[in-house]
């Protein structure tokens, strides 16, 4: 699983932000994770908590907002939430969809001082 590698990227980015903004302590890192990324929130939390020890982020926890998959239909123009394994417009059954949400793997914000 690549959650550990992802956790380390998060720590790197946050450390960069701490240096840049002169932060002393991070209480939480808030993430947005799309349902299509295949990232397991529990494994990521475990990997993050195991990796922050002995870093300036020690004690920080993750806040994970899971983003459902949303698609815009090119046939009927409607936007809807879809199941991540069924790329079909629930309104007109077209499969000509553009994913507008669900592929995020972003740090949204930090809580820190």
């Amino acid at each position, binding site marked *: *699983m*690549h959650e550990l*590698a*992802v956790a380390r*990227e*998060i720590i*790197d*980015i946050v450390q960069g*932000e701490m240096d840049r*903004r002169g*932060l*002393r302590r991070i*209480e939480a890192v808030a*993430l947005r994770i799309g349902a*299509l*990324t*295949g*990232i397991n929130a529990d494994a990521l939390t475990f990997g993050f908590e195991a990796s922050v020890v002995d870093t300036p982020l020690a004690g920080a926890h993750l806040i994970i907002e899971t983003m459902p998959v949303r698609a815009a239909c090119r046939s009927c123009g409607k936007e809807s939430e879809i199941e*991540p*394994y*069924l*790329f*079909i417009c629930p309104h007109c059954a077209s*499969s*000509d969809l553009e*994913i507008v949400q669900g592929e995020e*793997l*972003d*740090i*949204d*914000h*930090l*809580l*820190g*001082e």
Partner: protein
Amino acid sequence: MAKITKLIIQKKVLSKNDEIAANIRERLAKQKILALNLVSSPGSGKTSLLEKTLAEMGRDMRLAVIVGDVQTENDAARLRKAGGKRVEAITTDGACHLDAAMVEKALAKMNIADADVLFIENVGNLVCPSSYDLGEDMKVVLMSTAEGDDKPLKYPAMFRRSSVLVINKTDLLGQSDFDIEHAEKNARNINPDLRIFRMSCRTGEGLPEWYAWLKETSGSKKNS
């Protein structure tokens, strides 16, 4: 003590990887080299497909391969034996996927300026490699008839992000409960635009179509 404040970051976690991948893509665009990222579960036949391709197309086209494995360079040895002249191995030492930095490092050791196609054989895994852009033009996902025909539904991200699907080991059809029509339907539910090849690297079924596609796609990149 200072007050806890909320600081908006809004940054992609894999932005560093994406930057390196963008550099690779730009370089390969200048060199007009078609880059294909081959992904699948372990044992679907990525190395077999490349062995055949190197042996049978190595004279018509200039082919380069970066091959990733968790341990050993066995696959690289197989590909060199099959006739591969530009083969570079990446041993990830435990990591379950290739990332753009590994590919950049491998590229630095290779002389591929004259190549037509660069294959990147990813680590056998249908989950993790889907998150990592390697600078490729497209992903080619393989599955085999020895697996479940619901694989596309179980790993939608990979099938959604791939442009080509190879269903390998068609010589084994009938030996298991694998229903190829069902497999293709599942794959098209996830990604209607998939170009699908039915293939047996053992008997050669589907390989001529694959070679023709490879030549055509590489040709369009040359003329781009």
